[in-house]
């Protein structure tokens, strides 16, 4: 299974995006795991709601940021594929 434009990504079971107030950042926590997304990754992760597809996430970001849609799409697919391999998101 791979991440494609039509994929609707979800957080894998046990993975939660939450605020880490003591360190003034957001993190994804899971069993024995902690991912600290950078600013761009956090924008993408915040749009994962189990309803939006990858395409819809890219549309949302393209409307808000001044960057070519293809470049955003490539970033989003690369990030989600990486996080899928790490067991953080599932297609």
């Amino acid at each position, binding site marked *: 299974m791979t991440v494609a434009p039509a994929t609707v990504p979800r957080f894998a*079971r*046990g993975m939660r995006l939450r605020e880490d107030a*003591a*360190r003034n950042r957001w993190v994804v*926590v*899971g*069993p*024995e795991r902690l991912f600290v997304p950078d600013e761009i990754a956090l924008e993408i992760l915040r749009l994962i709601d189990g309803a939006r597809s990858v395409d819809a996430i890219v549309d949302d970001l393209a409307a808000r940021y001044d960057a070519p849609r293809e470049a955003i799409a490539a970033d989003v697919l690369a990030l989600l594929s990486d996080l899928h*391999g790490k067991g953080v998101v599932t297609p």
Partner: protein
Amino acid sequence: MTAPPPPLGLLAELTHRCPLRCPYCSNPVELSRASAELDAETWGRVFREAAALGVLQLHLSGGEPAARRDLPEIVAHAARAGLYSNLITSGVLLDAGKLQALADAGLDHVQLSVQDAEEASADRIGGLRGGHARKLTFAEAVHAAGLPLTLNAVVHRQNLDRLPALIDLALSLGAGRLEVAHVQYYGWALRNRDALLPSRAQLDAATRTVTEARARLQGRLVIDYVVPDYHAHRPKACMGGWGRSFIAVSPAGRALPCHAAESLPGFDFPSVRDHSLADIWAHSEAFNRFRGTGWMPAPCQGCEHRERDWGGCRCQAFALTGEAAATDPACALSPHHHLLDLAVQEAAVAEGDFTYREMARATVPG
């Protein structure tokens, strides 16, 4: 000294009671009685203090945490404190109904231990007849409850050859993650070292198995695997470094930089009954003693790896050299490194009988 960065993880050892008797148990050789255990209210306060301090992840462990009837109340305290809760369990005391109560209380994740993939061997290692079958039933209940599952397999000479079957077991039980944990040799495991240490050939085969399985199962099963100290050249950053990211609290309420630290002599570990976690973390002598690099002996002092491995494991250093402040002998630069090779050679010709974990006799029953 500047204030240490806040801890990320809290290990709550709720009890030392356990129906299993694994010969490599990480509990201290001196086990606590039920009458000495912290009550659920106190755990709730400790969880709130931990969350305020910056802890994100809570591991509810033991012994067997489900030996406590108030476990759902304890889980609810964790959820209210906003901690990510992981139940580390043998699975043999929990049925579907009790598990559902924990899920309803807000439990986030279950980590189930197995002793082997083969039933007769698993029951012999765990010292509980029928234990393995109960674990498999429990894993089905975890799946049915919709909770994420990690399978934890402690590996050693007597089960390492069945690692491929353990990986298959993790898949068939629907686990998202498999932790292949080599035995750490202090406490009970040190007593059983001759029966447990794997050979180099076994270890190499296991490492190949993991490498192959990781590639084949990417996106389906995450496999955590660390090469054991006795065949390593560099020590592990035990607990990510003493007092750097982790607090353990014993059943009786002692705060420890590592769950095995009570095996070290000359410490007065502070109690959460008397002090706040924030105070313990920042100011206690116990948490500051091996913090940072100032305490380090040669060859750690001046070594380029000193802020990566933090000198390795204090408990292992003490167990093997008699000095808690020595460089971990797992390091090839340690003057005691040869002790590890020696132990591997001795184990290769030793029998496989166990000294099982048990409470000391002749005291008042808990």
